[in-house]
């Protein structure tokens, strides 16, 4: 196994572990997660529960898809997109002075409050997603037509 492949697999496994750990508490307690989403004060009310229902499954399915060579790039792409949105949401609420729990790895309202550390953490996760995307194995290029 080449060094690039080892780095690639290390990134994939780390990102997979992170998102499985993030999604399971939300899937097990959807209403608590909906409250966490509501407290961000960003979404129109009709979208709060829909996001709480589907977002954790997007995280989980994409995290598991990272382990399959064929879907690795697509999964990393989705997770990168999610991380951009999460980071923007946390940063926006920090600027607005809204003091809420993150709802990232725990859905408890008593969990740690959001801070710039969470923004930095998400930026690090983004770097991990980019590395996962960029490192092989990547989707096989299409065969040239004869």
């Amino acid at each position, binding site marked *: 196994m080449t060094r690039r492949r080892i780095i690639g697999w290390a990134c994939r496994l780390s990102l997979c572990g992170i998102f499985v750990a993030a999604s399971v508490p939300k*899937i*097990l*307690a*959807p*209403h608590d997660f*909906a*409250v966490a989403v*509501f*407290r961000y*004060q960003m979404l129109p*009310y*009709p979208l*709060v*529960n*829909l996001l*709480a*229902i*589907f977002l*954790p*499954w*997007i995280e*989980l*399915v*994409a995290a598991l*898809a990272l382990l399959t060579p*064929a*879907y690795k*790039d*697509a*999964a990393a*792409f*989705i997770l990168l997109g999610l991380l951009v949105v999460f980071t923007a949401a946390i940063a926006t609420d920090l600027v*607005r*002075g*809204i*003091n809420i729990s993150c709802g990232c790895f725990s859905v408890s309202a008593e969990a740690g409050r959001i801070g710039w550390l969470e923004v930095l953490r998400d930026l690090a996760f983004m770097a991990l997603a980019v590395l996962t995307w960029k490192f092989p194995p*990547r*989707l096989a*290029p*299409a065969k*040239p037509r004869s």
Partner: protein
Amino acid sequence: MASAGTSANVSYMRELTARVFVILAAALVCGTLANLFFPGRIVWVENWANYIEAKAGKEKVALVDLKQAQLIAGAGTHVILDARPADDYRRGHLPGAVSLPYASVEQHMEDVQKLLTPAQPIMTYCSGENCDESFLLTLYLRRQGFTNAVLFTGGFTQWKTAGCPIEEGMP
């Protein structure tokens, strides 16, 4: 060569897009099934405007509407506490309101406490129906022994929209 590279990239992007949709579709199916059959399922669409009212009802926190809030503000019987961040307070607040941001309540409580006695009527508010800082502040005050508090659920948004007078800046 460049053309072959471009073609490979286009093909890669097509494959990538298709696989993104496959993952999203799988998540959509899983989420739908889970929310149909999981014991902890939630309603698909909820009226979160009633969320604070429901929680306040459970905790027996008294609520006041705009009309009552206007009477309270006019009578001067209550200490009015603004639970929003200090910057929001500075930009505009109910006349006579005191800033007590829930985000840093312990830091500011010492100053505010001087204005309060356990029996002192208090009215709390935050930005509107989609915030719960005033509700959490009311519970915090209760734990500190200030039990005579009511919550104005419409908050600053409803107050301002109704054309009620506002003050700006710090006192």
